């Protein structure tokens, strides 16, 4: 194969990879972004950790050092997003409480409308808001399992591996998390604020 053919092959391969990334991001980006939001304190931080994780994946794929095929990208990314979020959280602790307070106040005042985690569905904007708020108020160890299971469509084994817990612990946290969420929404319903 002469030099021109080699260059053409390389360009073609690169174009295929770019098209793959865009198509793949369109299909899976929203659920990854949701998990990144759950793991971080703001949309900006969520974008940062998601980008870090995606770049690491792109590098591994380009260098041919990624173990497993395309079906392993999602499990890898969930683990990577979590680790990046933990690292970012450690650095953020040094930024001071003020930035966190401002972000939390903004989220509270807008009811999460400013950066909604979900698109409004048939249940309506109000229900979306309460469910989203309920998720945010859950202990993180419950909400992260729920997010990975329901919208990430991960198995309990994959969740356990990503969170460094056992499969049984992942399943238990999922049940406890749903129960806690159920109680929250029941309380809201009893107060007449939710048409569930």
């Amino acid at each position, binding site marked *: 194969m002469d030099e021109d053919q080699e260059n053409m092959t390389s360009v073609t391969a690169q174009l295929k*990879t*770019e098209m793959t*990334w*865009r198509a793949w*991001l*369109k299909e899976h*980006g*929203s*659920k990854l*972004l*949701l998990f990144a939001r759950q793991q971080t304190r703001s949309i900006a931080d969520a*974008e940062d950790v*998601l*980008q870090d994780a*995606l*770049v*690491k*994946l*792109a*590098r591994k794929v*380009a260098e041919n050092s990624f173990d497993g095929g395309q079906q392993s990208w999602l499990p890898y990314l969930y683990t990577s997003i979590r680790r990046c979020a933990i690292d970012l959280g450690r650095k953020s602790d040094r930024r001071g409480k003020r930035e966190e307070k401002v972000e939390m106040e903004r989220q509270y005042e807008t009811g999460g409308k400013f950066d*909604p*985690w*979900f*698109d409004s*569905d*048939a*249940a309506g904007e109000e229900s*979306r808001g309460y*469910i989203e708020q309920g998720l945010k108020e859950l202990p993180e160890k419950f909400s992260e399992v*729920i997010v990975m299971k*329901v*919208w990430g469509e991960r198995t309990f084994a994959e969740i356990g591996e990503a969170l460094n817990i056992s499969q049984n612990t992942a399943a238990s946290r999922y*049940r406890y998390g*749903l*129960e806690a*969420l*159920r109680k929250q*929404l029941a309380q809201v319903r009893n107060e007449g604020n939710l048409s*569930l």
Partner: protein
Amino acid sequence: MDEELRAIEDQLEQLSPAAMPDDMLARMEQAMERWQETVPVEEKIVAFEPVKLEKGRMRFFNTWASAAAVALIAATSYIVFNSGTTTESTIVNQDGPIVDPITQLVPTQNIQNVVPASNSQFGTQVKRASNDVITYDAKGRPMRLMQVEFEDEVTIRGRDGKIYKVKQPRIEYYAVPVEIH
């Protein structure tokens, strides 16, 4: 899982994660295409060959220890110069060589003849400094290792009234945390 939890689960599944905005999608795609331009934090610090330090050699700067060392040099030199035997040390004048290491001159007698050194009788010069070594502490934090060579100089007066200058080389190591961005 009971029916109530299944109902909550079904409710949650009706929600769809908010779609990634187009501009964010473009940024992510671009970042993935240009992964070579993003260097991980752990690769921003280039490790040099770890320096094997002798046990106990690496320490932080201690003013009092340095002053005590110089005072000891002066005291020992005074005793040596006035004991009548000078084979174990070298007297330094303006042109003379450097005295032997202090460990060979620890006094065991005639302590009462020691003349305490004053500030004007000893000085320290930095002969050389280097900071091109990076090592890691026990917690894995990168530390820049600075090696500073000092030359301690003690001016003493012998019984014959002559002024002698004793020079003692000394190397200090300083570990400075490397700032990581």
